[in-house]
C-alpha cells in the first residue's frame, strides 16, 4: 500500500504517503473494536487509504508536486478519483512494490541501509522493529532509515520498470538485499532472538514479487527463491518447544515443512536454465541436500562438500570456508575437518562469530578431546549474541563435562 501511495503522491511525498497509511490503520483501530473486523480487512484499509489520499490530494493540490506523468489526472476533479483507483489497483500495487524495492536498493546505500529501508517501507517495520531485526541498535537503525529515505527523496521518481536494462542492472542489489534479509531471519545476530521467522517470510514474499516480473524472473532469482523455501522448510525445527536452538543433527525432522521443500525443489528445477551459475544456485543445491535427507546420517555430505568447493571458487569467504570444513569433517572425520578450519584464509574475520569456535569445539568433541572442546565452547559462549545461542553453547559445554566424566576409566 505504501509503495503504491508513494507512486500516487510522488516519491518526494513519502512522508505524506506514510501519513495516509497511518491514518487508515488508526481509523481501523478506532472503528473495528466497535463494529467488528470487516470480512476483508485489506480491502477496508485500502478503501480508507484511498479516501484519505483523495482528501489530501484535493486539499493540497497546489502545495505538492506530483510525479510528472500523473500531474494532470491528479489535479483535475474530472479524473482524480478514477486515477487514484487505477493507481491503487492490484496490478499497480504489485508493480509499485517492485519499483519501490528497486528504488530502495540503490548502490549508494550500504547493504544494511538497503535492508533497513526495505523493512521500514515495504514491510511496515517501525524503527524499533528494524533495530531489533538487524544488528546495531536503535540509533543505527534510525540513521540507516533516514539515509535511505533521503536517498529515495533525492531520486525524482520511483525506479522505472520501463527499462529492462536498468532493471537487470539493479537486480543483483535487490537479490543480495533479500538474501541478507532472509539470512538475518534464519540465523541472525539480533540480541533478542536467533530465529526471526517473520524476516524470512518477508524476504520470501518480496522475492515472489520479483519473480512475477518477466525481467526479474531470472535463473538466479529462482535459485534465490528456492534456497529460501528449502531453508525456511527447516525453520519449525530450528527452535524446539522451549525456544532453544537445535542444530542440524538434533532437529526433529518430522517438523520440517514438506510443502516448502517441494516448492523449493520446483523452484530449483526452474532455476536450472541457461549458463549463468550464481552463488544462489549453489546454496540452493546445498539446502536441497539438507532438506531432502530424512535423517542427518543420510545427508550426502560428500555432495555438499563439493558444492562448497564450487561456492568457494565463485565467492570465497571465511564463513563459507568454515561450512565447507564442517562438511568435509562429516565425510573424512573431525581431524581432517580441523585441518581445514586452520587452513581457512582470513580466519581472523571469524573472531566475532560464535559458531566458529563452536565448530572447532564440536570437532574436538568428536575426537574425544573434551577439555579442549569445552574451552572452545566457552569462548563461543562469551561472544554469543542472544539467550538462545548462549543456552545452546552452555548445553554443549555441559555435554563436554558429562562426556569427560563417562570416558574416564
Amino acid at each position, binding site marked *: 500500500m505504501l509503495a503504491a501511495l508513494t507512486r500516487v503522491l510522488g516519491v518526494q511525498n513519502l512522508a505524506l504517503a506514510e501519513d495516509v497509511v497511518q491514518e487508515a490503520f488508526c481509523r481501523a483501530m478506532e472503528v473495528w473494536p466497535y463494529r467488528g473486523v470487516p470480512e476483508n480487512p485489506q480491502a477496508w484499509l485500502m478503501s480508507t487509504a484511498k479516501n484519505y489520499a483523495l482528501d489530501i490530494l484535493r486539499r493540497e493540490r497546489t502545495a505538492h508536486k506530483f510525479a510528472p506523468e500523473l500531474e*494532470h489526472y491528479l489535479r483535475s476533479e474530472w479524473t482524480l478519483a*478514477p486515477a487514484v483507483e487505477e493507481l491503487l489497483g492490484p496490478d499497480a500495487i504489485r508493480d509499485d512494490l517492485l519499483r519501490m524495492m528497486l528504488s530502495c536498493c540503490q548502490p549508494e546505500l550500504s547493504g544494511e541501509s538497503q535492508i533497513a529501508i526495505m523493512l521500514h517501507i515495504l514491510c511496515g517495520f517501525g524503527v524499533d522493529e528494524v533495530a531489533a531485526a538487524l544488528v546495531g541498535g536503535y540509533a543505527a537503525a534510525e540513521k540507516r532509515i533516514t539515509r535511505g529515505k533521503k536517498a529515495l527523496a533525492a531520486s525524482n521518481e520511483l525506479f522505472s520498470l520501463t527499462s529492462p536494462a536498468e532493471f537487470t542492472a539493479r537486480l543483483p542489489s535487490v537479490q543480495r538485499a533479500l538474501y541478507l534479509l532472509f539470512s538475518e531471519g534464519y540465523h541472525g545476530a539480533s540480541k533478542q532472538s536467533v530465529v526471526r521467522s517473520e524476516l524470512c517470510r518477508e524476504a520470501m514474499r518480496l522475492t515472489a514479487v520479483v519473480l512475477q516480473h518477466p525481467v526479474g524472473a531470472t535463473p538466479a532469482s529462482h535459485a534465490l527463491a528456492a534456497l529460501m523455501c528449502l531453508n525456511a522448510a527447516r525453520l519449525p525445527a530450528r527452535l524446539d518447544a522451549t525456544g532453544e536452538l537445535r542444530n542440524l543433527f538434533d532437529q526433529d525432522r518430522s517438523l520440517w515443512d514438506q510443502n516448502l521443500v517441494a516448492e523449493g525443489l520446483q523452484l530449483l528445477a526452474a532455476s536450472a536454465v541457461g549458463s549463468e551459475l550464481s552463488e544462489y544456485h549453489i546454496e540452493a543445491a546445498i539446502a536441497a541436500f539438507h532438506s531432502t535427507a530424512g535423517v542427518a546420517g543420510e545427508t550426502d555430505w560428500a555432495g555438499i562438500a563439493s558444492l562448497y568447493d564450487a561456492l568457494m571458487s565463485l565467492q570465497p569467504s571465511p564463513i563459507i570456508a568454515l561450512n565447507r570444513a564442517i562438511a568435509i569433517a562429516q565425510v573424512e572425520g573431525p581431524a581432517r575437518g580441523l585441518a581445514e578450519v586452520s587452513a581457512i584464509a582470513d580466519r581472523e574475520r571469524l573472531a566475532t562469530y560464535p559458531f566458529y569456535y563452536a565448530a572447532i569445539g564440536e570437532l574436538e568433541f568428536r575426537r574425544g578431546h573434551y577439555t579442549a572442546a569445552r574451552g572452545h565452547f566457552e569462548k563461543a559462549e562469551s561472544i554469543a549474541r542472544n539467550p538462545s545461542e548462549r543456552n545452546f553453547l552452555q548445553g554443549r559445554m555441559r555435554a563436554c563435562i558429562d562426556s569427560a566424566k563417562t570416558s574416564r576409566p
Partner: protein
Amino acid sequence: MSEFAFLFRGRQTFTSPAQTQQHMQLWLKWFKELGAQGLLKDPGHPLDNTGKVVTGTQKIVTDGPYAEAKDVIAGYIVVEARDLSHAAELSRGCPILEVGGSVEVRPLQMLNP
C-alpha cells in the same frame, strides 16, 4: 495553436457506484489521450447542478438554474488545438456524449480595448 473551452452539458447520475466508476474511467481514458498529445491546458472542474442565478440591475438572486438536466452546464475544461475544427474533433471523445450529453466548443477570446 489556440485555446478552447469545452462546456459540458447533460451530466448523468448513475444508479450504481460500479456504473459511476466505469463512467469515470472513460473520462480518465479521454483525459489521457488529450494529455498524451500535450493538449490539456486547464483541467477545469465539474459543477454542482444547482446554485444561484443573479440577474438584472436589481441584482435579484434566485435559486437556479432550473433548466432541464441536458441544458445545465455540468462543467468545463480548456484544451489547446490547431483551430476550431480540430477542437471540435477532440471533443468527440468526451464520455458525456455517450450518455446523451453535449459539448459546446468555444474559442477563448482575447479582449483587446
